[in-house]
């Protein structure tokens, strides 16, 4: 086979992989149902990829004792969380090991169990109490921002509220659609 045909094969396949990465994310953003999530940000910096904000959602930590669904999870298990809209934000209603039956006005988001926590410190009683907590990763925990802007989102000024609009597609995959600061769109995701 001629050298240039060979190079063409490599280029086409490698480009397709890169387009597939973009396409998958865009599919989630375009077809997914937008939901508003409350965040509690914290920050590191990626050596290769510049500044990014590490986002901690209220749905990232789930108390299994307070929710319906499955209870026996292991580290790295896939997890499906059924979210329902409460006043402003979407909040967990039940937790499942497999994709549950969909219900009206609900969204199912897919994640992975990061770790399980069996005890929780109670600030009021100053005693470590028994708990059944799941720490979940949804793949929406990192948001890359222009260099030097990370701290604005991570350490908001007094009274500032940072919220994330997340799109969740039919398979439960999630992607950050927009970042809101005090209800105004600060960053919005587009294809180009």
């Amino acid at each position, binding site marked *: 086979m001629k050298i240039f045909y060979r190079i063409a094969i490599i280029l086409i396949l*490698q480009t397709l992989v890169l387009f597939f990465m973009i396409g998958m994310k865009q599919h989630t953003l375009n077809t997914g149902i937008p939901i508003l999530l409350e965040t509690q940000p914290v920050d590191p910096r990626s050596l290769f990829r510049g500044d990014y904000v590490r986002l901690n959602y209220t749905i990232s930590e789930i108390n299994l004792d307070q929710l319906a669904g499955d209870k026996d999870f292991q580290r790295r298990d896939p997890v499906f969380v059924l979210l329902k809209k409460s006043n402003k934000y979407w909040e967990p209603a039940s937790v499942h090991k497999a994709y549950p039956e969909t219900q009206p006005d609900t969204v199912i988001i897919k994640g992975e169990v990061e770790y399980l926590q069996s005890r929780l410190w109670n600030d009021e009683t100053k005693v470590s109490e028994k708990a059944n907590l799941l720490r979940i990763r949804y793949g929406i925990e990192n948001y890359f921002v222009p260099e030097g802007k990370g701290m604005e989102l991570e350490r908001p000024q007094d009274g500032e509220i940072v919220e994330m609009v997340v799109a969740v597609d039919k398979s439960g995959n999630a992607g950050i659609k927009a970042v809101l600061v005090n209800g105004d769109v600060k960053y919005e*995701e587009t294809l*180009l």
Partner: protein
Amino acid sequence: MRNSSFAKRIQKELPVWVEQGWVKPDGHQAILNSLEPSDSHAGFLSYALSILGVLLFGSGVITWFAANWQEISKLTKLILLFGSLWGTYCTAGYLIAADRYRNIGQTILLLGVILFGANIMLIAQIYHIDSHYPNGIMLWALGGLLTAFVMRSQPAMVAAIILCTIWTGMENFDFGQKIHWWFLLFLLPGFCLVFQNRWRFAAHAAMIGLLFWCLAIFEPVEHIWPKVSVLYLVQFYFLFYLGAGILCNLLYDDKHKATISVVRNYSIFGAIAGFYLLTFPRFQSGVRWDGDPQRITASLPWVIITISMMTIVVGLSVWQWQRLSKTEDTRHILWGYIVICAVNIILMLNLFVSGLYGGLIAISLNLLFFACLVWMIIAGIKRYDRYLINIAFIFFALGLISRYFDTFWSLLNRSLFFMVGGLILVVGGFFLERQRRKITGEIVIQQKKEAV
């Protein structure tokens, strides 16, 4: 000593030597020709330097993107990423097609593989793709494997194997609950390519990767089968690498000797390192520094796996015996087989006994370990194999030190322990090194004699 000052001196002296009659006139030019720098060495140097240059350039591109990223629009970023990838591969293709710059073309291909990885990372950043992060490295490794396969590129193959090893490291150490079999699925076509193209460097990378994977799966294996697994896994490794070493001897031919000898050497290392681990009494009894022996007998899957591997090793040994007995003196090989048979019997017995008998098993394996090392030295002398002798001496020293620590740590006063240990190291090290040099030196002399 092939350097320019030496060559100049010879050039200056040669006419005098010819005049004196020490060197024949026609030998004059032959000597000068032999002092010319070798093309293959110069070619290798420029190849190595260009690879180094590509690696530095690739790192520079990635860090430049990272530093200036926010100032560029999304569309420009994509044009830059895809443009650089396409431009690099097309340049590589052009250089390889113009046969004269084939080596430079190969190194530009490596730059293409590096840029493919940079594109994965940067597209993940642009579109906030934050999934299971080892997958990014896996995609990168697959891109490298594709380039190696399609372009028959050794640098791309080495890069792909290194990336695959990083990938399996991440999967095993960060998410280590299951054995990461995918690594082997990746390595298998990699090995086929390495053998087909006789890539020596890639063979080194593949064997190092395989040894790394063998170590990395300790944690998931222990998680799946606690209390017994790691010991039986090491037994399996010993048998596997022993079988691989014998297979390499059987497959050895002039066409593939460059790659097969690399695989054989790593296999011998893997087998003897595995055997060395099996000689530790605490490892055999399953004691974790204090407490009672914890090891229980092997479960059925381990019995099946171990006996199957033993059967393969025995089969390969018989095949080798049949082949060697026709051509050479096989007495020393017979002794080796007897030692290996005895080790196999102990390993099989070990499947059915608990940690209570760990001490007894360890003593037997220690005796066989040192017998095996002595046999390796004898076999090395008989077959003029310096690698076999060197590795045997290294593990002989390691074995002695380990047994000294095992035996005298609790028996001697601490200061006396270290003083005696230090003396043993100095005297023993001197003696072993002297013996090793003597034997390998004799082999070199013998080889030169035979060459003459």
